[in-house]
């Protein structure tokens, strides 16, 4: 497992989330000012400096449940609210999109270009807010500093770590089905044509050398694929043409995005087991969350400016989705039961007490209250 995977997972999933939210805000005709505020608040929270510092520390990936909780929090960082069904759908779309991007990366290293595509788009979203732009650029630079020097082998390990995280997720996404990049069984279609990865030769040539190392014979063989040499490599700098299209916004054209629940998970038995068994890592995850969420600056909605975003076309659809979501696909966001265990609550308070709070936020009830309120709500 690579200890450097979490930042890439978080930033790319976050990027997908912003694409989807942006599309839904427009589809639901949310007034421009409110929509911009939501995007700015979420992006500013995501790229919070303390949060990023925690994120970039070498560490194992945490469970799907813990990560889901972070995105729940992030999506509610502003005046927008999402029902459970919409939040579930949002998370399904985010994860399947990034899984697709990871799988289709020509080289393991190209996952970095995917990340840069997401960040380039995020910078576009907040192009008129220089303060937030700075935050994003800082993270961009940190990414470049941390990942550009890594070897291909290290990227391969990161890729494997990501794919293990996404294993057994086969939710069907209508855009993918329509574009024929996903089959009806939820598996992705791998292309056997197009440009080969940068640094790879088009398959088909055999060169034979004699014992002096001199090439003495060439032979060719045909392959099933239809590959070509790529024109140029994508840029790994702060600015530049990434060349790779993976990680760019596929929701730009307004298309209703559906997910299909039935028959999407074959491995029901093992998934059910995962949900029921008590999680001995819950304490670790609590600590992790406390550290991460401790860095998030959450605003409470002021007056009536709050609104609810629906990931479905109608409220009825959303309600229906909530009722018909298969049990094994429910995310059961961290079932910590902090309220019932006084020891845990005390532990959490102690941890929060140790967190270094840079400056007090006026009007906030305090980080501890926020965090526990979050846990109580689960």
């Amino acid at each position: 497992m690579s200890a450097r995977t979490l930042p890439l997972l978080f930033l790319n999933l976050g990027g997908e989330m912003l694409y989807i939210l942006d599309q839904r805000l427009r589809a639901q005709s949310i007034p421009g000012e409110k929509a911009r505020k939501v995007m700015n608040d979420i992006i500013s929270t995501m790229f919070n400096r303390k949060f990023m510092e925690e994120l970039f520390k070498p560490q194992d990936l945490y469970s799907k449940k813990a990560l889901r909780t972070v995105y729940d929090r992030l999506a509610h960082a502003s005046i927008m609210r999402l029902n459970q069904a919409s939040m579930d759908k949002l998370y399904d779309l985010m994860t399947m999109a990034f899984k697709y991007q990871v799988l289709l990366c020509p080289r393991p290293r190209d996952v970095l270009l995917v990340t840069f595509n997401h960040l380039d788009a995020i910078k576009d979203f907040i192009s008129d807010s220089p303060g937030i732009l700075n935050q994003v650029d800082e993270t961009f630079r940190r990414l470049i500093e941390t990942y550009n020097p890594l070897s291909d082998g290290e990227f391969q390990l990161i890729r494997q770590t990501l794919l293990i995280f996404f294993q057994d997720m086969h939710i069907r996404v209508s855009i993918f089905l329509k574009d024929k990049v996903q089959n009806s069984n939820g598996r992705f279609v791998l292309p056997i044509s197009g440009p080969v990865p940068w640094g790879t030769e088009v398959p088909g040539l055999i060169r034979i050398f004699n014992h002096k190392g001199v090439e003495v014979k060439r032979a060719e063989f045909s392959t099933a694929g239809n590959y070509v040499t790529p024109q140029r490599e994508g840029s790994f700098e702060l600015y530049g043409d990434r060349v790779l299209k993976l990680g760019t916004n596929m929701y730009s054209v307004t298309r209703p995005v559906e997910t299909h629940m039935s028959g999407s998970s074959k491995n029901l038995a093992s998934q059910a087991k995962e949900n029921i068994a008590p999680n001995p890592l819950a304490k670790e995850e609590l600590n992790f969350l406390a550290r991460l969420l401790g860095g998030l600056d959450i605003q409470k909605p002021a007056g009536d400016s709050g609104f609810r975003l629906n990931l479905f076309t109608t409220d009825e659809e959303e309600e229906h989705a909530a009722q018909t979501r298969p049990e094994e696909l429910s995310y059961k966001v961290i079932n910590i039961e902090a309220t019932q265990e006084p020891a845990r609550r005390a532990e959490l308070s102690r941890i929060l007490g140790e967190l270094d709070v840079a400056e007090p936020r006026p009007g906030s009830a305090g980080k501890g209250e926020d965090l526990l309120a979050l846990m109580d709500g689960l």
Partner: protein
Amino acid sequence: APAAPAAGPAAPGHPQEPLGPPQAAWCELPSRVLLVLTSQRGVQMYDADGSTMVFWHALDGGNSTHSVFARGIAAAGGRFVCVGTSFGAVLVFDIPPKGTNVTLSEVLEQHRDPITDMAAEQGQAPDGAGDLVTADDSGTLCLWSSGEEFTLLGKIPGSGCTCSSVALWNGIVAAGYGNGQIRLWEAGSGRIRAQLSAHARWIYAIDLAPLTGKVRGERAQLGAQLGAPKASHAGILPDIPACIPH
């Protein structure tokens, strides 16, 4: 630090904790067959029917910010099980004909990058060709002769591309690389004999049919479950001459 041999079901990892990407290999020795598993925790060895853990060796991660794991398994010299590590070290375990008295007999430190794969000679090695090849992230290959003390017979430097998989047959190393190439090297001299632009993606696994010397490379794109990768598209190579012209 080497752990004391342990028999019994004590598995180091919790079932919910991700161990991957794990590897599993059968190590066939003259007297017994062991099932060897590697992960980020270290090495576990089981009896052939999987009922008893014969031995386990925990990797000492220390304060490393780099990923720590064991990777690459091969049985060598009819007596040893070799396992690679993310530090570049190759651990050599001396396996008794029966029982649990496995000992760490040597640590080979010739690689500076994480070990990716290793393979023992599956045919008849010509003189001086060695019986074990180890590979790392930088593409460097090391040829070894096994024994009470392993001897380094040669090193083939990498050219910047990860060597992800190796096989060794009749003194020929077949190596698969991250850029989709397969290269055949003469183990004894370290000279390259053939280069194939075989695949359009990273080569995950290479295997060898010991009786015929036929080589097959595979690029499995989907996530690997414990043991076997789910291959979506296997590249079939044409027959390449097993006997390289002299």
